[in-house]
């Protein structure tokens, strides 16, 4: 672990290029995905990514509630991203705050860009993301979990959507920021990729990046997404393999 420097700001990068948790600039935190973790949902996935624990469930396509939201020619995607009260250092009041509402919208739009919604007019695909334990990059973990859940639910899509945040720590572009890097770093850029087309359907950024830094960050992010993509696919293969066990815990 990095030692604490002046003013209680942790050392984010050693002279050897090691980050606060010993990673290199282009390394992801450990990522484990379990597809089909829940019993009731049409599709689900549990993601453990670094110290993040995020659960996602998909219901649908199903009737739209309230009815006036339905679209005549396609399904709508409704997304609810929420953080559990105990998921963060300081207990969070239950309920959607403005940050969660914004993230919900951004994620819904990412999936709407990838789902073949015209196949199910006048229905809703409901995506629910619950952050159970947070350590930066929760919206990316949420997109990864929800994407696997959508495939698990049989929703037709262009592709799975791997997602990761790239940032800048101690002046260097770094992949997959953890909490201290997010708090004390100089930039944070979450993104989600459609591997089939190479295009981004989610992109946000906050901080300071020069244009060359941005180019480097985009490249690093896309490369990170491609790695995450493989983990997502493997989770689904494990779930649907001939002899895989049922992760949702069927009662005997």
């Amino acid at each position: 672990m990095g030692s604490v420097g002046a003013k209680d700001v942790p050392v984010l990068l050693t002279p050897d290029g090691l980050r606060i948790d010993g990673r290199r600039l282009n390394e992801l935190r450990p990522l484990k995905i379990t597809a089909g973790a829940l019993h009731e949902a049409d599709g689900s996935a549990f993601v453990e990514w670094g110290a993040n624990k995020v659960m996602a469930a998909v219901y649908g396509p199903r009737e739209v509630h309230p009815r006036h939201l339905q679209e005549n020619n396609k399904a709508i995607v409704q997304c609810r991203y929420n953080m559990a009260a105990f998921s963060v250092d300081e207990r969070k009041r239950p309920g959607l705050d403005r940050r969660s509402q914004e993230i919900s919208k951004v994620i819904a739009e990412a999936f709407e860009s990838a789902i073949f919604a015209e196949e199910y007019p006048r229905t809703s695909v409901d995506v629910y993301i619950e952050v159970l334990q947070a350590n930066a990059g929760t919206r990316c973990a949420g997109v990864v979990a929800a994407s696997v859940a959508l495939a698990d639910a049989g929703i037709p899509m262009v592709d799975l959507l791997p997602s990761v945040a790239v940032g800048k720590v101690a002046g260097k572009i770094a992949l997959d920021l953890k909490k201290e890097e997010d708090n004390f770093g100089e930039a944070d850029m979450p993104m989600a990729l459609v591997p089939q087309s190479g295009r981004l359907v989610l992109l946000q950024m906050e901080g300071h990046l020069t244009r060359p830094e941005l180019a480097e960050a985009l490249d690093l992010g896309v490369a990170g997404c491609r790695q995450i993509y493989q983990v997502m696919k493997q989770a689904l293969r494990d779930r649907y393999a001939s002899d895989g066990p049922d992760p949702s815990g069927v009662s005997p």
Partner: protein
Amino acid sequence: MSDEVTAEILTTHILDLAKSGKRLDGRGLDDYREVTVEHGFVTSADGSALATIGTTKVLCGVKLELGKPFPDTPNAGVLTTNAELIPLSSPMFEPGPPHPRAIEVSRVVDRAIRAAETIDLTKLCVTPGEKTWVCYVDMHVLDHSGNLIDAACLAALGALTHAILPNKAFEVGPEDVPLAVNHFPVECTFVRLGDAIVVDPLVDEEKAAQGRLTVATDEIGNIVAMQKGLIGAFSPSDVKEIVERAFQHGDRNRAIARGV
């Protein structure tokens, strides 16, 4: 998606089965599904537990923070419980304001924890009238296959019995110590299906039920809380029979929740 319509023939079938002592999933009238409690599921909480009953799953996180005591109890800590029936857990729950069931689950679990004097709230007081520990018990339903009250209470008990008071982080003391838990309440829920009274109901059994009774017991033989729900009735001798069964199931589940 609001509460879905259950086929009436299924309801009739559930009641018919109960007459011959059988249930939808092959259990007997007094068979409880498999219970597991995994402690320390989330490290962002000061204490946490994931409780499962069959495929029902509830995650509870306990967080302890400093706050002001209530004016009328200056020497006591504050305990607040909340259950979230999130739409992720069931096609029956919509996003939005709390479902009435969520409020009932919160209050029923709260009542059991408080009545059993699970935590001595006076021990949570740091400076009378000024500073006290606030203990937040937040239960998050993740998967609803029936019997949320029992699962939520098991998760809460599991989280409380493994909670650590963060003295250092809040500069209250030199060391973090385990939260002192003195009593161990466990809830046990029954529903009436015709003349039969079955334990640990499934979702479809809850929908077919003609009355529901939850009994909370502690480890020294006290009944600490009861709640009757749904539309239906129980005779006093029903209640006594249910209480006996609640102790048997409660004692077994109590050990699992405590991890002993």
